[in-house]
């Protein structure tokens, strides 16, 4: 069990998301950086879908109320276990009474704290993710606050022991190295690159707007959160007025409201909307958005359905290989 000693707003319990309920009007929720969540769980020998804490606004502080292994993935936030510095993308053992402190990240947007066994909150519609729109799931359907105490899932016989990692732990290479994706930029300014499939109303935009869509660096505005990112850049104009009835949408959809400034719908997006859709960020790249900060820029790279499927397969392969390497390391460590 752990106790939250300090947290910014909007730290939540998340797993990989609540799939299969969009038809009931229930959004997916789930970790904004699903890869970081999965890797935290892999480091601990957990199921990839085990629930962990997503920490978007730092600092964050928690107390270990029992001995347990834990993992820290996502943004590098100068973490400390008591006074000892912990490298990013790392797992190690904490003793009862130790305090984990996350500081301000120098880059990236979200850190994940996973515990051996995974967090034990009730599953709702097959997921432990916090559903912010409906105030259910996760921990009491709300963001975590000071004084909250969270349990880990009780061990089943034969499960990975809670304390299998030596005190100094080990880490993995951040996935940006194993799954690199770079957008060329003439002036050396870096932008998060994501691959995008043209969506339903793509052909309704002017040629000039479509050219801008693929060329521009889109800035993430302060009106961006788990619901979606509002972007700033060139104004996208349609050839004619597009009026649509509300229809189903999924995380990753890029809508264009009247302003001509796109919105990328994300994990807590509502499951339907009426704005025209110019594109969809492929599933395999949504984690890259999850680590893009307000003020940073995004580039859209045009891709095809086949490439999108291949990218998802590559991501699964990467996780499978990482899992194998971690298992060997855990065996050597124990």
């Amino acid at each position, binding site marked *: 069990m752990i106790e939250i000693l300090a947290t910014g707003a909007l730290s939540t319990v998340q797993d990989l998301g609540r799939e299969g309920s969009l038809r009931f009007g229930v959004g997916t929720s789930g970790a904004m950086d699903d890869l970081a969540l999965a890797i935290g769980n892999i480091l601990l020998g957990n199921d990839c879908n085990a629930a962990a804490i997503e920490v978007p606004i730092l600092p964050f502080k928690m107390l270990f109320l029992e001995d347990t292994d834990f993992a820290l993935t996502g943004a*590098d936030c100068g973490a400390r276990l008591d006074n000892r510095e912990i*490298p*990013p993308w*790392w797992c190690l053992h904490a003793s009862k009474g130790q305090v984990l402190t996350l500081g301000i990240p*120098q880059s990236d947007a979200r850190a994940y704290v996973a515990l051996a066994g995974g967090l034990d909150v009730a599953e709702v519609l097959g997921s432990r993710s916090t559903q912010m729109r409906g105030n259910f799931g996760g921990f009491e359907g709300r963001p975590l606050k000071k004084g909250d105490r969270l349990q880990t899932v009780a061990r089943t016989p034969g499960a990975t022991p809670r304390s299998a990692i030596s*005190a100094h732990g*080990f880490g993995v290479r951040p996935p940006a190295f194993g799954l690199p994706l770079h957008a060329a930029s003439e002036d050396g300014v870096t932008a998060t690159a994501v691959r995008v499939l043209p969506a339903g109303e793509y052909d309704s935009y002017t040629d000039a707007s479509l050219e801008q869509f693929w060329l521009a660096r889109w800035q993430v505005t302060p009106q961006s959160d788990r619901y979606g990112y509002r972007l700033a850049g060139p104004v996208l104009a349609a050839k004619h007025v597009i009026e649509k009835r509300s229809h189903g949408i999924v995380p990753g959809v890029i809508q264009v409201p009247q302003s001509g400034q796109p919105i990328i719908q994300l994990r807590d997006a509502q499951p339907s909307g009426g704005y025209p859709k110019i594109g969809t960020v492929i599933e395999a790249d949504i984690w890259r958005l999850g680590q893009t900060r307000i003020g940073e820029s995004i580039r859209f790279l045009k891709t095809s359905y086949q490439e999108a499927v291949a990218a998802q397969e590559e991501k699964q392969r990467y996780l499978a290989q*990482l899992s194998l390497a971690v298992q060997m*390391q855990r065996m050597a460590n124990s």
Partner: protein
Amino acid sequence: MNNDELRELIGLMEAGDLHVLELKRPDFKVRLEIANETRNGLPWQACNVAEAIDAPGTATSYAASATTVVTAPHFGIFSTRHPARQEAFVEEAQQVACGDTLGVLRINEIYVPVLSPVAGSLHRLVDDEVLVGYATPLFEIGAA
């Protein structure tokens, strides 16, 4: 295992520039160490031991008398900088505390930490991005 086999192993160690070799079999265990190398197996635990023995604040005196060589706890690509960071864990001539992370060894996608077994002033022996073998001397830590 007989003397000839041991001699052969030592020859192989010298030819391969290996400093320490451990061989475990169900019925025996052999550990060969070429002289002048100190292996610091479990520095983190060692720190805890040092703290338990010495009164607070005197743990540094443990290392005051001699230079400690920190060797690689694993083979791998050595670096004093985590790839997600701009700054290195440590810089040459820096004062380090017992248990500080001095660097990492990368084995494919896995990182194994190199920790300081003592407090003192740091002198690095290996450049970043060099592939090192098990027990390769990586740092010398002099009296604080």
